[in-house]
């Protein structure tokens, strides 16, 4: 039967490997190229010790990639990691709109292109969640599988799954480290906690970084916003 199927397809066009693997040469060194690009893009970000300094765009500003935007600098003193317990903030974060989208980017944290945010909350400890953009893309989330406390995560490795409709969405870990806390409160109502408030109530886990230098490789709020405004536009 399957032979019959193949016959029905007629002549199959034979292509060279370069044609199918369109970036074969880039792929061979792709990881290195990507790393360089990200490091360059984030070179203005400082490493974090007990004090985290970030350069961000003013909250609620509408960003245009062709127009330079003024920046502000905020300095936050971070608590030590030992004995640290992350408590859900009571205030919404400062945000910038993503041009052409109905969603926004919180400016007090960093990002990966796979629509996850990473916020430094203590010395070498980050909170992690999904972005408003991802929340909107997924629509109503009805299951969320998260790594348990004590799980060792590798940057780029599997972080967890969410299910919306008949679609599983796989999340990758934005950093390497050990899971310290898991936000079990999201399971009270995933829609209200993650879909409605992804930057505050919808935090997923906290992670103790094993490679703090990875922080410098993450996208700034402006970079994440620019990437998504380009996608949408």
């Amino acid at each position, binding site marked *: *039967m399957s032979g019959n199927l193949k016959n029905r*397809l007629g002549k199959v066009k034979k292509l060279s490997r370069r044609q199918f693997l369109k970036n074969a040469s880039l792929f061979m060194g792709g990881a290195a190229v990507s790393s360089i690009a990200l490091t360059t893009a984030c070179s203005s970000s400082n490493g974090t010790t007990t004090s985290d300094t970030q350069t961000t765009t003013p909250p609620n500003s509408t960003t245009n990639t062709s127009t330079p935007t003024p920046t502000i600098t905020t300095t936050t003193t971070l608590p030590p990691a030992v004995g640290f317990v992350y408590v859900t903030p009571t205030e919404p974060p400062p945000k910038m709109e993503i041009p052409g989208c109905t969603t926004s980017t919180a400016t007090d944290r960093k990002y990966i292109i796979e629509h996850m945010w990473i916020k430094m909350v203590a010395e070498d400890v980050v909170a992690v969640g999904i972005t408003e953009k991802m929340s909107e893309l997924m629509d109503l989330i009805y299951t969320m599988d998260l790594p348990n406390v004590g799980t060792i995560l590798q940057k780029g490795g599997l972080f967890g799954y969410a299910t919306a409709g008949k679609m599983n969405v796989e999340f990758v870990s934005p950093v390497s480290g050990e899971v310290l806390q898991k936000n079990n409160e999201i399971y009270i109502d995933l829609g209200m906690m993650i879909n409605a408030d992804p930057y505050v109530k919808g935090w997923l886990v906290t992670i103790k970084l094993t490679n703090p230098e990875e922080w410098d490789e993450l996208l700034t709020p402006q970079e994440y916003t620019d990437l998504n405004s380009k*996608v949408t536009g």
Partner: protein
Amino acid sequence: MTHCWMCNLGLMPYKEAQELQHRLITLRYKNIIDDILLLLEHPPTITLGRFANPKNILVSQDELKRRGITVYPSDRAGETTFHCPGQLVVYPIMDISHRVGRLREFIHCLEEVALKTLIHFGISAGRLPEHPGIWKHGKQIAAIGLLVSRGVTMHGLSLNVNPNLNDFKVINLCGLPGKEATSITTLIDHNVDIGDVITCTQDTFSEVFDVDLETISTEQVMGDSYAAESASMV
């Protein structure tokens, strides 16, 4: 209209097809390849989605073995599904991060592919608000389940063309007790060549997703995906 490869893999074991898809979504994520549509059939296989209850398999292991049916875990969404020859499986490996709209709309488009294909064969099927997939007269004719990793889709749609429907009774379809499967052949009461359904599915897929399909051989897809995977390990 964007470019999209199309490959007919013929009859391929589920495990092999899932491994191939994982290689391809990595290549797609890295923008090494364009989108690619895989069309294939599986040998008799029960697949268990991430939230599947094994109790939805209704016969013993011995009976499954006797009937040549394998059971395999799947990382797609959804419950228990049955695949076999005569069922056309449609796996789009597509980067949807550049497509405006929600992921649910991608599923909606995939359902449209099935619905338009069925209309071509004189079957007016539909969605049920309470159950996933495509249904006709209360029986399921197409099932859907996907995985999205780094903005790239895998798994997809299975459309019953002319399978042995008795084999579907080994499970509760999609975890729904009492629900039955149907097929194009059953509904129009004469046999349909699965090749005709493939041709029609290509056309409707191209129309619904606004892509320009170009055929590529199984050998090239398999060989190049292995080669690229090996290269990445160097």
